[in-house]
């Protein structure tokens, strides 16, 4: 197994773990961590793509790397925004779960989840 496929498999594993965490964990902080895991997996896949470009004769395709840098900035801002919201929510209510919804909303949403 060469490095590219090893990185690819690791990326896929991270994506899987992240997706699982994002969907199953009810706590927003854990969801956020899962989102970051998932994001890292995607970035790793981008890295593999750049490597594959190199294998095809393009000397280290720089475009995926540019995309990863942009993606990291975006994921960082998203995480910062989510943490700010979470902290504020904790200050307001003393809780940090998405489950404890106001009753008016829970009644309307019961059918879908």
């Amino acid at each position, binding site marked *: 197994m060469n490095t590219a496929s090893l990185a690819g498999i690791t990326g896929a594993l991270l994506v899987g773990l992240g997706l699982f965490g994002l969907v199953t964990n009810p706590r927003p902080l854990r969801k956020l961590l899962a*989102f970051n895991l998932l994001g890292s997996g*995607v970035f790793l896949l981008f890295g593999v793509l750049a490597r594959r470009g190199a294998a095809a004769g393009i000397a280290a395709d720089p475009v995926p790397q540019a995309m990863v840098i942009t993606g990291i900035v*975006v994921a960082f801002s*998203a995480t910062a925004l989510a943490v700010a*919201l979470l902290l*504020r929510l904790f200050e*307001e209510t003393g809780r940090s779960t998405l489950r404890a919804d106001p009753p008016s909303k829970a009644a309307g949403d019961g059918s879908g*989840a």
Partner: protein
Amino acid sequence: MQAITTALTATMGGLLLALAIILPVAGVLLSFVLGGRAAERIALYLMPAGLGVAAMIALGVWRSGAPLVYLLGGWPPPLGIALRADGFSAVMLLTTALVILCAGLFARANFPTPAGVNEARAPFAFWILLQGLWAALNMVFLGGDLFNLYVALELLTFAAVPLVCLDGRAETLLAALRYLVFALFGSVLYLLGAALLYGAYGTLDIGLLSSRISASPAVWAAAALMTTGLLAKTALFPLHLWLPPAHANAPAAASAILSALVVKASFFITVRLWFDVLPSLPVETPAAILATLGSLAILFGSVLALRQERLKLLIAYSTVAQIGYLFLMFPLAAGLHPWTADAWSGGVLQTLSHAFAKAAMFLAAGLVAETLGHDRISGLRGLGKVMPMSVFVLGLGGLSLMGLPPSGGFTAKWLLLMASVRSGQWPWAIVMLAGGLLAGGYVYRVLAPAFASADLSLKAPAPRNRERIALALALCAILLGFAPSGFFAFLQIGRPALTAIP
């Protein structure tokens, strides 16, 4: 090959496309530097200017009869990034400029900087977020590169989520957090799909991709991932759970923009993906799945709207239902058939008329809530006497949602209905008719108590000037019902099915 080479060169008037993005971004930066009081003024001065730019782009597309293209830095794809405006982009830009202008004028009363201070937190944030949202929307409607569209979508989310929780109540914070989780889930799936496409074809430019793409497992996986991500952001059933609390708890001007424009942005990219990137693939099955989800959205959204106690929640659930109609466009407008042009026009027109109608209704509902101090539907008895104009706006908006003539909603649903009959796909027609009836039901639930004779106690006098803003938006939705045939020809400009090689 001809289509590809023409797509790679910039056209006359292409600089306008860059200007449409630069204007609001410059507004954001200037607002940061100059502070709160100036932010409001900058936003309100820029909005008419932005409307002018959007109108000039539309005029340019109309005159040339072909999409406008601008290459950033003069670099052609695949290395560079192209901005592109076709008929659909042009009308979306115009609608965005109009709705944002109206929402901005409306919000002046809600977000003034108090006298004596230079900057207050909520107004400062609101005016900057509003301009940021506008920049992101224009980027989405002009983007010609899938990765660029990802960045635009993220900017949109970062501007939209804080707008939901500007007042800082726990309820709105929860709604915003939930919205953010769904949006992040959506964007990371989209990015994963984009990575797969890049890995397979070495470009993310829409024009280049559409000429290179072929049906392979990687492409289908990418399409599925990107579409799921976009659906989470568009709040299509069953990924709609975040929308009603977020849209119903936001300030009225923000609700109007979120419901009218923000969910349409990810829908717009879904359309770009399936009609511009993947049209050469056999898309019948995925299109049918999308339309089935749309049908379920129409039925569930409408039934849940019927059961709401609060006016703003009712309108928000109606958005869930109306989004469903948009997705009926996919099986009807795909391929090259006699009915696809009409289905395309119907889908676009539904996007536009819902934007105007829903923005008007949210603004009117916001005024009702401000004037009465609540928005419980059971407490609206006698509203017609004290706020006739707002009730009229809710009625006009309702007309378009139900699909009754004369309104943009009627023409849109009629075109979609005819397309589904002509193509023999009758299940969609039945869903559309049922959705219209259910919409009639929930609009009636609001209007019937409003026309009852009862005395209402008002918390504040009804603000006539701001009611007029909502009325202007509602009239736009009605006017779309009188669109001449030239308008429908305009919507077809740059539609890939017409330029594709059979």
